[in-house]
């Protein structure tokens, strides 16, 4: 649950880092897409046969880097994920603040 906004103007360094990491996680697929579209921009229509081997190496390198970056990010991001909440909390009062809720400072 969020706290009222007056406490969120300045954040502890860790929380700040974590929020930027979440931003980065949102940007990653966009960066990835741009990198994967790059081969289109260096197409040489005059060449007889396409440089398939070189492009293949490039694409696989982009691919594996995306995987490595996602791996590193997931190590940090998974800390913000709480244990799975039971779908219904039959034994708890309905509006009790959930202590297990992820401490995500983000919010829309």
């Amino acid at each position, binding site marked *: *649950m*969020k706290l*009222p906004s007056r406490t969120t103007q300045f954040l502890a360094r860790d929380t700040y880092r974590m929020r930027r990491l*979440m931003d980065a*996680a*949102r940007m*990653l*697929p*966009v960066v*990835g*897409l741009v990198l*994967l*579209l790059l*081969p*289109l921009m260096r*197409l040489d229509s005059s060449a*007889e*046969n*396409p*440089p*398939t*081997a070189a*492009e*293949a*190496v490039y*694409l*696989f390198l982009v*691919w*594996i880097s*995306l*995987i*490595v*970056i*996602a*791996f590193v990010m*997931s190590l940090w*991001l*998974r800390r913000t*994920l*709480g*244990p*799975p*909440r039971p*779908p*219904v*909390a*039959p*034994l708890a*009062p*309905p*509006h*009790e*603040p*959930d202590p297990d*809720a*992820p401490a*995500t400072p*983000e*919010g*829309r």
Partner: protein
Amino acid sequence: MSFNLLVLTCIAYVIFLFIVASAAERSAQQGRAKWLRSPLVYTLSLSVYCTAWTFYGAVGYAARSGLEFMTIYLGPTLVFVGWWVLLRKLVRIGRENRVTSIADLISARYGKSNLLGVIVTLLCVAAGTPYIALQLQSIALSFTVFVSDQGRAPLAADRNLIAFWVAAGLTFFTIAFGTRNLDANEQHHGVVTAIAVEAVVKLLALIAVGIFVVWFVATGPSDILARIDAQALPEWTIQPGRWTGLILLSAIAIICLPRMFQVTVVENIDDKHLATASWAFPLYLFLISLFVLPIAVVGMELMPEGANPDMFVLTLPLHLGQDGLALLSFLGGFSAATSMVIVASLALATMVSNHIVVPLWLKLRAARNLDTGNMRLLVLSVRRLSIGLVLALGYIYYIISGGSEALAAIGLVAFVGVAQALPALLGALFWRGASRNGAALGLSIGTFLWFYALFLPSFGPDVLLPAQLMEHGLFGQSWLRPYSLFGLTTLDPLLHALFWSLSLNTLAFCIGSLLSFPSPIERVQGALFVNIFDRPGPARSWTTPVAQAEDLLPMAQRILGASAGQAFFRAQAQAQGKNGFLPDITPDFLQGLELKMSGSVGAATAHAMISQTVGTTVVSVEDLMAVASETAQIIEYSSQLEAKSEELSRTARKLRDANEKLRTLSDQKDAFLSQISHELRTPMTSIRAFSEIMMDADGLSPEEQTHFARIIHDESIRLTRLLDDLLDLSVLEHGQVSLDIRPANLRDLIDKSITASKSVQAQRDFRILRSRDPEDVQIVTDPGRLTQVFINILSNARKYCDASDPQMKIIVRQKDTMLEIDFIDNGSGIPRDKQALIFEKFSRLTDSLQAGGAGLGLAICREIMNNLGGDIDYVPGQGGAAFRVSLPVLLERPPATAVTSSSPIDAAGAD
């Protein structure tokens, strides 16, 4: 390799999968299978994305179009490395709302509308069936390629027959492990584990062939790169439109494909698994794709002219004399095809049964005013039938299309089909203004365009669409030509259909949403879905109660199963601070029940069923406000207050219950005294009267004397029995009873009790329904006392069951160390207001003396059961009076001291 050997290998492999799946199911049932639900298994199960189309087709694709095959795996990679944006939310929503399929998610978000569920289901079936056909084709094809002795085994050449047997086998497997249970959110441990094993097999097979090709046929990576450039064809040039479009399309498909939704969202149990899959699944795809191009290139180089590149993975090792490797590769392709078919048919069958068959059936029943019967069995059988139906459709499709070229392209055609669900899905996740009408409009338009511009023409001219229509357009209008709608003539047919269907779909969805006004329940669900991370727990959509818990219990039992339904009601009642099986009907309780049921039959059906019983679906303005995010903070502050007042009202409820009980007990005590005087006086009076007559013995004949003496004797026996009962009760209540504990067989005890109880109202013919096998349990208890309880219940039924054709059902089930024995008759049962009192002393429902007892029977039974470490309860809503006797299988001494209920209040409070 001989045909028989190959078939044997396949069967052995399938048996192995069977063993894995059933072992997984078993350990999941015993709750000791943590690794079964590990991130690794989750990631591996996602590999159901890589079907036979990947395993065989990717190499063919690479041979024909170069690097373009990679787009199919790059799109999903982007979606997964970007899990924080979309998948995280999707998975969370799916889990918290117990979503059973993509159709269920969309229908739940848009006001639990079944219309949307039906549209999405039909779309998915239309797109999924050809895909299943493709898998059957690839298995059949790999069989014929592999078998060397086709001359001797004519069966091997008959692909249709092979496809038939494969389809039949897969139907059986899917039914066996996919429809075992209804509850638990549609999660299938056995299936998921088998899929994970198959994922390993297909990955290993492809890598093995790849390593063989790179290091044993070629001399290493650099050699392979040189060969790639040497083999490169002009057609291999990357086409910008297709490259971008296919990356986008495959990214959409990984979200919207029913089978992917099943493994990603429905089978997910923890967000953290998704965090692992975010890199592990792309890695899997990476490894799968890594050797595709090398295999294609070497195949093109070495294989004879005209060899089908789609089969290179299999034919290349065969050609080079590596039979073992070829067999592994065959099993890899077999795994890829079977795992896809299993998951896809399971997902489609869930949709068909939840969104089409069950609602239809309920409507028919409601129209004819019939009881809904045993829903659970119905839903399970419908699901089994649907699995058969989906696979049959796939098989028929395979036969009709005759394994043509059209089938090979169907993978991408299916992708475009399921992509139509994307606008509605994204709207569900991110746009609170998205409405049901908009979603229905967008989905219908998109589906129609896909059908017209891609699906139908994909069969080729004059198969489903006349060539003339394809050439000149519908009604001769050239702007209606399927492959160049509205004058867009330069695009590739696939991109053309993708562009038009998806953009008009989105447009219609947005306009429809902007112009329509959503119903309250839609807005509640919308706020809940979009702001899933902002508030704990599901929203309320129920208001003031109208129905009785007793009406809801039978319905819940039909869907969840008797014991699960009762357990849920009991837990809810306990949470409210009440005893027994019937909680107060609060909005929260209804919400919980709906959520529980939607895990089995889908949100729309669950909602419809409850509203049918409860009679209201109206959400009040207050409830709307309660879920609107603007008021989230107020809720936050008032929640503690609310929790406290909740606590208070719970205490008050307990007090009220206790007070009520005290008053009835005090009334009972008075009644007890007058009753006991009455009970004692009646025999006394007759004893006195007859003994006075006998004192006057002169005028009596010996016969009369004997007669009167007998009456006196009988009456004194009755008196003694009454006093015995009273003493017995007192001893039991004070826990001073000495139990005769020894081993006994439950079946023998029940047999004995039934025989003994026959003497009561011997003229009534009772039908006893029992199943003798589960009764065969060895227990350690006091058999005499237990039999006494059974006899009491059975004789009560004989006395009070008012059915014209009376019957008694005895059900025995074992739960861990406890045994439960249900005695259910088919009479009118015990009225609600009396249910709390029947276990009290001298409570007789009828005041008449027909019972012939003092009304101590059930009170004694309860004390006996307490002394035996168990309990006896009345279970409402079973279609008659139902008593549940529960006791430990193994009674340990000394329970008597543990259960000492010294005062009547304690005894009453123990129920």
